[in-house]
């Protein structure tokens, strides 16, 4: 027992600083790479010195973009990990199961029908849409007969339904189509300092809730009866976990548009390092997800010069094959 535990424990302890270091490197790269490439020293000057030529670039576009990537990545990674634990399903992902699409449909409704076009207005709609779909999907996925294929299928079907609703609204109003077609891809390129400030409280609250239910969710993994015998409160834990998912996905989607697969990939990679213990898995997911999101964003800036590829496209193109490999791997196991 001790020898088997020693290895992951050491990995976890060494891995956390390594993951933080990777995050730091990606943040610096995200500040440095773009239409105007900056050397690391220039990035530092641009951050600290208002007289520097790079100050405007760093502060007005790259810093908000990087911070938004950090926040949204953390949110999606945590939400994915909590969702996979809650549904006991390795294929759960807020994008794939339609939670992000629910937020997105609510935002398009607010934009097209009510004329709300500022983030501070539609973030509430995003949270409401995410909440509705989360409860629906949870009701479907929580049943005893649920399998990964069934849950994924239900999520995709909800996604398709929401997609056709969004398309209907866009067709009625070409102005909305023109605005929303860029938002529905999923991008952090248009980040403004205001956007970052507005979603920070929601994501912080969601993060606290998610990390707080790590231990109770660990207990729930034993099954409801055993967990109740150990003093857990399954209904309360699930409620808190769903609230965390809604806050995290809703605010991330309001700011960036729907982004798929980040919440699917990161917890799976993290679980290889940490094993199934959520007290480790959740922090790892929170750190590794922004590494992936910002990394994908940087790739998007580089591959299609002089224009850019949206981060949502890069994550889908990387994440799709990972999803397929997971499917094949599960069947083999």
């Amino acid at each position, binding site marked *: 027992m001790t020898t088997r535990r020693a290895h992951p424990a050491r990995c976890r302890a060494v891995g956390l600083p390594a993951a933080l270091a990777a995050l730091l490197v990606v943040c610096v790269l995200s500040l440095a790479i773009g239409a105007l490439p900056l050397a690391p020293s220039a990035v530092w000057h641009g951050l600290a010195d208002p007289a520097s030529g790079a100050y405007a670039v760093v502060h007005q576009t790259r810093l908000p973009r990087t911070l938004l990537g950090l926040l949204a990545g953390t949110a999606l990674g945590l939400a994915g990990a909590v969702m996979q634990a809650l549904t006991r399903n390795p294929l759960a992902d807020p994008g794939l199961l339609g939670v992000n699409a629910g937020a997105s449909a609510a935002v398009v409704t607010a934009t097209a029908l009510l004329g709300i076009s500022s983030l501070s207005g539609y973030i509430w709609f995003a949270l409401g849409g995410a909440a509705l779909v989360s409860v629906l999907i949870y009701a479907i996925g929580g049943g005893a007969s649920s399998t990964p294929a069934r849950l994924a299928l239900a999520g995709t079907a909800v996604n*398709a339904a929401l997609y*056709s609703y969004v398309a209907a609204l866009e*067709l009625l109003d070409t102005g909305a189509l023109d605005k929303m077609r860029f938002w*529905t*891809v999923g991008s952090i390129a248009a980040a403004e300092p205001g956007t970052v400030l507005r979603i920070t409280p929601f994501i912080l609250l969601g993060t606290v809730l998610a990390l707080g239910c790590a231990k109770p969710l660990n207990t729930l993994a034993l099954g409801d009866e055993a967990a109740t015998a150990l003093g857990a409160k399954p209904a309360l834990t699930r409620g808190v976990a769903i609230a965390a998912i809604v806050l995290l996905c809703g605010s991330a989607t309001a700011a960036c548009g729907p982004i798929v697969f980040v919440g699917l990939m990161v917890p799976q990679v993290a679980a290889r390092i940490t094993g199934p213990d959520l007290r480790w898995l959740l922090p790892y997911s929170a750190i590794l997800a922004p590494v992936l999101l910002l990394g994908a964003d940087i790739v998007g800036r580089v591959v299609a010069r002089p224009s850019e590829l949206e981060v949502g496209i890069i994550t889908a193109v990387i994440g799709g094959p990972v999803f397929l490999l997971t499917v094949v791997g599960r069947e083999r196991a």
Partner: protein
Amino acid sequence: MSPTMKRSVGVSVVFVALAAVAAFATVDIGQFSGGITEADAFIINQLLLPRILTAVLAGASLALAGAVFQSVTRNPLGSPDVLGFTQGAATGALVGIMAFGGGALVVAVSAWIGAVGSGVTIYLVARRGGVTGGARLILVGIGIAAILSAVNEYLITRANIVDAAAATVWITGSLDGSTWSGVVILAAVTFLLAPCLLLTSRSLRVLELGDDLAIGLGLGVEKVRLLTLTGAVLLAATAASQTGPVAFLALCAPHLARRLTRRTGPNLVPTLLLGAALMLWADYISQHAIPNRVLPAGVVTGVLGGGYLVYLLAHQRKTGQI
């Protein structure tokens, strides 16, 4: 004739009647009560008749393809809408609209290529050791669908707004561009493939029992799957190339037909008739729902079908079918 068979025939007759009512409503016979002028004749012959025939043929094809997909994946949600096939058709059409200017024929051909291409890809990826399990087919389809929708979203952001609007209409599914030449293509493919698929009804029913049992009963499981899926993909691709992948028709029609006939098994004939009726009604409603606004038929099927789907998910969860 067994009671369920009688009911099945009765329901089919009702579907035909519904389709006929919708067709008459579309032509709106009443408006020609004062005699038919030359202009009226042109509208009927060149605009309305092809529209109605396209609706009937495409609706029947999509519904039949959906029934086959659901039967092969053994899941009421395993329709082309969900399994990456629709997204493949959309990718093809977007490329046709953006790269080659978007003539009707170009869009039809490129959508057909996209649909068949994604169908072949999904089948090949899902096939391992000569076996294509239902669950694996579904999951692979979902993965491919997610990748392709990202590609589609990307293409739409790169288009100018006119192309983007045209592409959105096409992806939603509309009967506005119906022509006689389209009807001829559709009719040829439908009359060739639909009877072949109808003949596989018995094999599909055995396949639904599960691979082990079906093999035990002497069914060439993999051969049946390959043949029926090929037929369904070709049928749906041709329909989608003419009208666009009308949302949820392929998902809902087989389901509704099964509920109404109360028969187990794929219910191919009632499904086909219901598909035609639903398409005609969706088109009629989309033309008349909002005064002075003409919507694509896919908006109606998408919104109604989406609502039905949510009901289905909530209801069928209890029986453990989904």
